């Protein structure tokens, strides 16, 4: 049931809305279909980011893919939490360290053990439009625990203009979602993994800009 709902929202409605009206373009999206289970790691500028990535997934993937979202923001009330989980299939975690209850890494790990995929934004918050912030180390801890699961670096640009933080009016702009090659974490060092991913995303961005500018 949830699969059908997500399929209707993202494959039927959102994908066409984003591509035709908003102007989102996908590059190398075929990379997604090569893997049954993956962690998408992307830079984050806008609420559009999650929508754009969810719309890129196929029917069989979308049921089993959870964007990881901040519980203190999207789950601040039971209603908000229910709506977020129903419409985006999100996995809500607590960002603050002193939060009671489940450890965020454990929650994500449990979901990976079940065979599900995750969408991670290691920058944490959307930040200033079109600027990348330092990555948080959660993704490194997670990949260290699951070295057999592929991660796919994703570079997104333009979303910060469509719907920047604090804005409510959506304005169409051409924007791009660039998928990188999937790979596996090579080391046991958390910081090294985080750094490697960060560099890969930056490299994707540089290569993309280079292909557009002389």
């Amino acid at each position, binding site marked *: 049931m949830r699969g059908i709902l997500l399929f209707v929202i993202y494959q039927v409605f959102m994908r066409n809305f984003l591509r035709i009206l908003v102007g989102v373009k996908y590059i190398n999206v075929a990379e997604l279909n090569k893997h049954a289970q993956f962690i998408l790691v992307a830079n984050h500028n806008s609420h559009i980011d999650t929508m754009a990535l969810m719309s890129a997934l196929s029917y069989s993937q979308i049921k089993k893919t959870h964007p990881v979202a901040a519980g203190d923001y999207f789950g601040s009330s039971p209603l908000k939490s229910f709506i977020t989980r129903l419409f985006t299939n999100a996995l809500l975690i607590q960002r603050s360290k002193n939060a009671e209850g489940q450890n965020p890494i454990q929650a994500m790990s449990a979901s990976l053990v079940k065979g599900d995929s995750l969408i991670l934004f290691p920058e944490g918050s959307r930040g200033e*439009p079109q600027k990348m912030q330092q990555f948080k180390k959660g993704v490194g801890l997670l990949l260290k625990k699951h070295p057999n699961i592929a991660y796919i670096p994703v570079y997104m640009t333009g979303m910060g203009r469509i719907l920047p933080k604090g804005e409510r009016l959506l304005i169409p702009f051409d924007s791009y979602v660039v998928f990188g090659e999937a790979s596996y974490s090579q080391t046991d060092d958390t910081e090294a993994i985080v750094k490697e991913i960060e560099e890969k995303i930056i490299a994707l961005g540089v290569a993309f800009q280079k292909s557009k*500018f*002389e």
Partner: protein
Amino acid sequence: MNLAQFSANKEVTFIILLIIGLLVFATLLFFIWGKLKPKANLIELKLRTKSWWTMATVFILAIVINPIISYFAFGLLSFMALREISTISKNVRDVDRRVMIWCYIAIPIQFMLAYNGCFNLFVIFIPVVMFIFISFMLVIRGETTEIGRSMSVIPTQLMLTVFSLSHLAFLLSLPPIAGFNAGGRGLLLFVVFITEINDVFQFTWGKLLGRHAIIPKISPNKTWEGFIGGVLTTTVLGYFLRFLTPFSEVESLVVSFVIACAGFVGDVVVSAVKRDIGLKDTGTLIPGHGGILDRIDSLAITSVVFFHIVYNLYYS
């Protein structure tokens, strides 16, 4: 226009068959060329031909099936072109983001005016009404630093995309002229075909004979040889395609010549905008052609010029 009427309109049928024939010819040419000389780098030419197939199919279907589809198609095309130009333009401030919504709202209004044939409102809506309105909306935002730049850039973007392409749609709303069969559809096919084939001719002559660059700083590939060769070939072709228009022999020669020159102007104007930003192509939507703007750059000027020539010759 249903299919029976369509086949009855010999002029339109002929030009559509001609377009398909040309594409078949180009496809075969590059295929055989590639087989004979495997070393030749034809990837760009092949991609371009493939894109032409898609564009021609969409264009012909929109024209043949129902004129209303054409209005929507041109509306959507100008929407995507405006989105593209507003994305690449680095001259507009972040605070102007919200003002863009009014530009998008102007698109359906402009095409409604074209559909209803309200000529007087149609020609002033964007250059006058929107020009004033956008300036006022920018003032309301309250940020005056470099506001003059935004006041000039945003209306220009609207002019280059929405205003120009809506003239193609308006051709379909022109009342019939006595003794002339092909109608607005014929005029539309004439201007689009002449403009695009002029691009191809200038490109081809430039590749074959090009030596002396016209404006090397803006477009190193634009040469005097390409320009003159293109303009002459286009003018001759326009003479033979005059059955699509109500033009006399002399008129058809002059109009084709003017379109060929105007196409060049549009091309270099958009090229200059791209140079300013340091961009290679304006987008990635059409493979081998860059973005939408790269394909409609010449059309942005020729559509307006052609429309007003026709209007002044036959409707005033």
